[in-house]
């Protein structure tokens, strides 16, 4: 951890002019004549062994006595290929290396010292410094000996991406405010404080068309204006970092890899609204995000970019971190505020908007992490630039975390309006192992499951809701034909029974009863009438719950019933799970014509239920079989099927 205390160059920046000096200084430091080697050490990188790589690098640089800078950055989004190491050397494009290990990292450092950049290990070279509009350096036409390395921005994974919210993730050291300043950070704030009126900022955000990235897609400027116009002091500015959807991690990546962008966005928002204090609400499960944000806040305070009289102006604003205790419902605005106040996270009816009476009964503006991270770019690049990106009513980009059955999992930031097919097939490489695509769950437990027929649906706020799903915070879970949609609905519904706060009857009792029916279906104990009761319950829970958790809780069930009704009926009427997932309803058999008697299933079966000899088609002993499906997964000839 880098401490700001006692550092020589952490004097307060006392004016906007001084800030420009600091910017020039930070740039010269970032693009120095030293080689800068960094490791992607976000949670995803660390899970893949980035800590070892980092230790190896540090040790090698130390023992070889090389004058290299070793830094850690956030995640570049390509989680599939972690650990990632990148090298920024003077006069050369930035090179990214994938699948690194401590040993490879040591070798790489030694090789670079001798001028060999190991093109064979490289993932790609970055001609511009970021995948954003502006760049200090441009090596597009000057590969400088690295022409065998593909351009990072031309890799299928990055080609269609446009990184606004994720602009610095994986490119700068989140522990060093100067790297953020060097890449254009805080220049929007400086510009705002020097020359823009609060009302004009709200107009600017309005013209940009920015909508809340937390799920609802409410117009950000309208929210800000309501809060600015509300009577009362103090006013609060909050950041929602309680990303609770299973399989979603875009906010985490921003908080870990680019925390200053959030702080800068919040400070600009606070100036526009007329607030002087704020909170970042982060879920407990994100310790690294909390750590990086805390460091960022301390550094921003030391540099005079947070706290009293920011950049020597009359404007003061400070931020504190509030840690959640691990409840999904605390992502809901009123529950989040109750949680910050120290009460248990329970929502209340929002007949009075939180912009009038929110945190501690004061006017409050809450935006999601990604929304805040977009704000500085809108100020810097202008509303028109931003409004040109995306679709008709959904402007800008959206970050999606694509997980499940795709070749390239990771974070994808694309202009809104691109199709699901673009994201799942072109960027993420489609479904692996030659399987068929079955569906994609967008928006986590509050969203819906969309079938193959909707793959050409443009992804924006309205179209997803029309299709029975929602944007949510941007999680996408891709399923292949070995996934059962009834089981999917059951899984998310069970998640919601645990995560509902339990305040209102509709959500607490309704979802539990929905789960009971779904469990009956997956066990083969349901009758046709249960489908009607399930439908009745879904509509009831949707209409009668207090907050968004309950109102959207039926989406996974409603959407799967809508698009995969046959599969539900197969469970109920034929007592059969076509995907081979629901154990009570599944029977695996060997198709003798296809079986080559290779014996892989025999070796894999954990209960020795598969019997077979050489050159004789294998058989499965149904009495022993536990329906785990392991044999089906290993069979190279697709000879194991669901009866």
């Amino acid at each position, binding site marked *: 951890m880098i401490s700001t205390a006692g550092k020589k160059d952490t004097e307060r920046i006392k004016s906007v002019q001084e800030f420009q000096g600091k910017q020039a200084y930070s740039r010269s430091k970032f693009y120095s004549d030293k080689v800068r080697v960094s490791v992607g050490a976000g949670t995803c990188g660390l899970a893949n062994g980035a800590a070892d790589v980092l230790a190896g690098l540090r040790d090698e640089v130390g023992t070889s006595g090389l004058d290299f800078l070793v830094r850690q950055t956030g995640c570049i989004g390509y989680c599939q290929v972690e650990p990632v190491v990148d090298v920024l050397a003077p006069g050369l494009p930035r090179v990214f290396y994938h699948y690194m290990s401590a040993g490879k990292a040591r070798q790489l450092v030694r090789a670079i010292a001798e001028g060999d950049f190991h093109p064979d290990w490289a993932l790609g070279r970055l001609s511009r410094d970021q995948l954003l509009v502006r760049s200090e350096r441009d090596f597009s036409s000057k590969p400088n000996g690295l022409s065998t390395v593909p351009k990072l921005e031309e890799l299928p994974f990055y080609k269609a991406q446009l990184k606004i919210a994720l602009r610095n993730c994986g490119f700068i050291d989140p522990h060093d405010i100067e790297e953020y300043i060097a890449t254009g950070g805080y220049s929007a704030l400086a510009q705002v404080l020097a020359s823009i009126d609060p009302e004009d900022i709200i107009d600017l955000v309005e013209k940009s068309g920015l909508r809340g990235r937390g799920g609802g897609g409410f117009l950000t400027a309208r929210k800000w204006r309501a809060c600015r116009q509300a009577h009362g002091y103090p006013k609060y500015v909050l950041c929602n970092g309680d990303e609770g959807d299973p399989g979603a991690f875009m906010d985490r990546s921003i908080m870990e890899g680019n925390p200053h962008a959030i702080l800068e966005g919040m400070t600009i928002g606070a100036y526009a609204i007329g607030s002087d204090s704020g909170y970042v609400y982060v879920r407990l499960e994100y310790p690294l995000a909390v750590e990086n944000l805390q460091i960022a806040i301390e550094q921003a305070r030391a540099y005079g970019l947070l706290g009293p009289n920011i950049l020597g102006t009359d404007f003061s604003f400070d931020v504190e971190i509030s840690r959640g205790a691990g409840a999904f419902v605390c992502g809901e605005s009123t529950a989040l505020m109750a949680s910050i106040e120290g009460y*248990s996270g329970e929502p209340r009816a929002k007949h009075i908007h939180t912009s009038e009476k929110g945190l501690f009964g004061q006017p409050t503006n809450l935006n999601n992490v990604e929304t805040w991270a977009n704000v500085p770019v809108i100020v810097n690049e202008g509303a028109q630039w931003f409004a040109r990106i995306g679709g008709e009513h959904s402007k800008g980009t959206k970050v999606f975390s694509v997980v499940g059955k795709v070749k390239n999992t990771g974070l994808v930031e694309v202009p809104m309006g691109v199709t699901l097919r673009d994201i799942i097939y072109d960027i993420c490489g489609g479904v692996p192992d030659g399987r068929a695509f079955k569906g994609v769950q967008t928006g986590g437990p509050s969203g819906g499951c969309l079938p193959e027929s909707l793959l050409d649906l443009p992804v924006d706020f309205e179209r997803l809701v029309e299709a029975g799903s929602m944007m949510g915070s941007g999680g996408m879970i891709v399923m292949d034909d070995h996934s059962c949609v009834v089981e999917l609905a059951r899984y998310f519904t069970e998640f919601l029974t645990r995560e509902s706060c339990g305040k209102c009857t509709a959500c607490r*009792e309704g979802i539990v009863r929905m789960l009971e029916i779904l469990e009956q279906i997956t066990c083969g104990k349901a009758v046709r009438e249960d489908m009607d009761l399930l439908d009745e319950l879904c509509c009831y829970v949707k209409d009668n719950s*207090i907050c968004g958790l309950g109102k959207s809780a039926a989406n996974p069930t409603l959407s799967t019933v809508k698009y995969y009704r046959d599969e539900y009926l197969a469970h109920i009427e034929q007592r059969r799970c076509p995907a081979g997932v629901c154990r009570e309803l599944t029977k695996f058999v060997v198709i003798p014509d296809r079986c080559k008697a290779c014996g892989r299933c025999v070796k894999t079966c954990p209960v020795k239920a598969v019997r077979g000899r050489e050159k004789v088609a294998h058989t499965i002993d149904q009495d022993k079989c536990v329906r785990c499906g392991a044999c089906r997964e290993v069979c190279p000839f697709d000879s194991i099927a669901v009866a």
Partner: protein
Amino acid sequence: MIAVFESKKMPLVKTVVNGKHIEVERDRWALDVLLEMGVAVPTLCHHPAVEPYGACRLCVVEARKGKWTWLTTSCDLQIREGLNIETDTPSVIRSRRMSMELILSRAPHVESLQRLAADLGVGRPRFGPHYDIGKCILCGLCVRVCDRLIGASAISFVGRGRRRSVTTPFGAASESCTGCGACIAVCPTGHIRSFVEESALNIETWNTRLEMIDCKVCGTPFTAAKLLESVQGRLGKGGSLERVCSKCRRLQMCKRLGEAFHQV
């Protein structure tokens, strides 16, 4: 005919209830207005002594304002200009019935719930009782009364979702419970059990046992010592409490009245 509800503080606003145009002070709770008008609205989690909570969902109405129509609980809905409220549309009836059915399936043997269910046209719930939760329907009245009105905060909700229940901290004997019995009085289902045994008040549901004070006249234990202490504390020097039970107090009063009568 326009009924006018008098107001001192807030301005009157025009609103429509079941097609009837009325003027009513702004920001009043819709449920209060409906009940005053004599419109029958079922509710289990509402009590005039505490703030609205919106948990039981029985008081739903269909609200319309401008082009928006939505189902909402009336207890936490505030009256605004141009608000149109309908209390017996098919969707309101459907919602109330389902809420009632779900509540009843939690505690199917509670008579008060059975009666309310019958009024709403709900028969035997289609869902079986699954977990042993006594008679509690999590309306939160006891929690709110104990916290906001009594100021003891002896009980609260614990757990979330289906694991939610009301209890004392860690389920241990409460240190702050005074034995006032307000929770027992407001509970709509009779979930909170208590009895007197050997000069002690046992609030079984809260695992709490409180020493009682004997009536100085008849010698029967009549109230929890802590409650007397707490009330005395609130009264301060303004008054003193006699340690006499209500029965004996009534007798004393009658005696005094009789004596006074004879003197006249």
